[in-house]
């Protein structure tokens, strides 16, 4: 074979790698909150929106879940540019990720809302709470708590999916890796290190989301119930 493994050259690319890491994390964290809000709204629309709103929500969810993310982002980036609408690669990536994760979050949250016993909602009605108050104070906190592990997995998957964003020339981690590899022809070392960096970022994301859970679910904290 005669191949000399060498990782030392990567040190000179450290600034590029850092840049890639920050862009990947940036896209991820910027997309999570709007994606969650969008998904939760769509779940509520499907459950309580009436025929038209629920129908529109269903179309959105099915359209997104049955087309590739890369086509969605190409459409936003290249497709809109044909119409003289230019959004940068970061914005295109964040919008695509938000819309994409929103559709999956909608299905997860819908299951969460449906898992709440009807008796609790009846009890809320009988206490003169309004529908919005019931959703906000009774249904939402419990739904999120019940599906939290599934949400975390979905957000981690979304972070890993940012690796295709180099296709719209966003210099996120995978894009940087490809560039280094093409300069150095050391694909073995480069992609091994990149894989480790993704692993570390995914772990970080899970830790952050678990921290959010600790703050958001005081009952779990008090009673020591694992998620």
């Amino acid at each position: 074979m005669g191949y000399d493994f060498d990782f030392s050259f990567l040190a000179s690319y450290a600034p590029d790698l850092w840049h890639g890491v920050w862009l990947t994390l940036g896209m991820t964290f910027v997309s999570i909150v709007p994606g969650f809000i969008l998904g939760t709204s769509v779940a509520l629309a499907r459950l309580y929106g009436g025929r038209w709103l629920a129908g529109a929500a269903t179309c959105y969810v099915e359209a997104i879940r049955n087309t590739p993310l890369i086509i969605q982002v190409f459409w936003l980036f290249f497709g809109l540019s044909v119409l003289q609408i230019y959004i940068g690669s970061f914005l295109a990536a964040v919008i695509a990720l938000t819309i994409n994760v929103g559709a999956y979050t909608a299905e997860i949250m819908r299951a969460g809302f449906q898992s709440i016993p009807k008796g609790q909602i009846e009890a809320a009605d009988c206490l003169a709470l309004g529908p919005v108050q019931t959703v906000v104070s009774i249904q939402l906190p419990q739904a999120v708590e019940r599906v939290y592990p599934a949400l975390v997995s979905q957000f981690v998957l979304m972070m890993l999916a940012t690796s295709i964003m180099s296709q719209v020339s966003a210099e996120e981690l995978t894009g940087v890796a490809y560039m280094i590899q093409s300069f150095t022809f050391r694909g073995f070392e480069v992609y091994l290190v990149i894989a480790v960096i993704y692993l570390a970022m995914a772990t970080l994301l899970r830790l952050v989301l678990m921290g959010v859970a600790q703050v958001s679910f005081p009952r779990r904290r008090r009673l020591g119930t694992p998620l």
Partner: protein
Amino acid sequence: MTFTSPVLSPAAAPIFPAASMVAFRDVRKSFGAFEVLKGIDLDVGAGEVVALIGRSGSGKSTALRCVNGLEAINGGELTVCGRALHQGGTDLRELRKEVGIVFQSYNLFPHLTVEQNVTLAPRKVHRIGAAEARELAAEVLAQVGLSEKAQNYPEQLSGGQQQRVAIARSLAMRPKLMLFDEVTSALDPELTGEVLRTIEGLAASGMTMMLVTHEMAFAKSVADKIVFMHQGRIWETGDGGMLSSPQTAELQQFVGNGL
């Protein structure tokens, strides 16, 4: 379907006595083609405690659920706290600010502490502040004997304690009328006693109540009026004495089996 129950005489029912909190007039309720309430006439005066007894499926829960608008009636007239529910357009939220209900399954909010369960509706609906909410929780939890559990979560409580929290949660809305639907049916005898004592305390404080119960001794001791329902009709009405000297074969059979 014109026969009427043998003992209840509609002529004896006064037309809307001034202090009447709940007035059923020939109330009918169907689920699809199945008529569950076949003409109910009943008055509940302010401060009165009325117990509904009867076999499974006789329509007790349905009658109770009509009172706070959980079920809409299909015929007759039903007036609750001065609101004519049969006329439609009743604001059910306004009605439910005055009428509390407690179910067999306590339906507490598991993600909230006892204190939060009790104060959620007063804070959201009556918009009371944090300090006032704390005082209110202390007051109603003391009333049901659970002051020391304010910071616990429902899953940390026994069934009887959870049911008493559910009662406190309703009381915190300061209702004029309380409805209880078999609130002890899910509890073993020991825990049943503590819940019944709580309700007796409420009765003594002058609360107007309608309660569905299978506890005959309790119905006899706490109720001013006992209503025996059979096949969607009020079959027999009376005070506690009615249980020891039933007028109808159906009630006789019911108490014979029940005790």
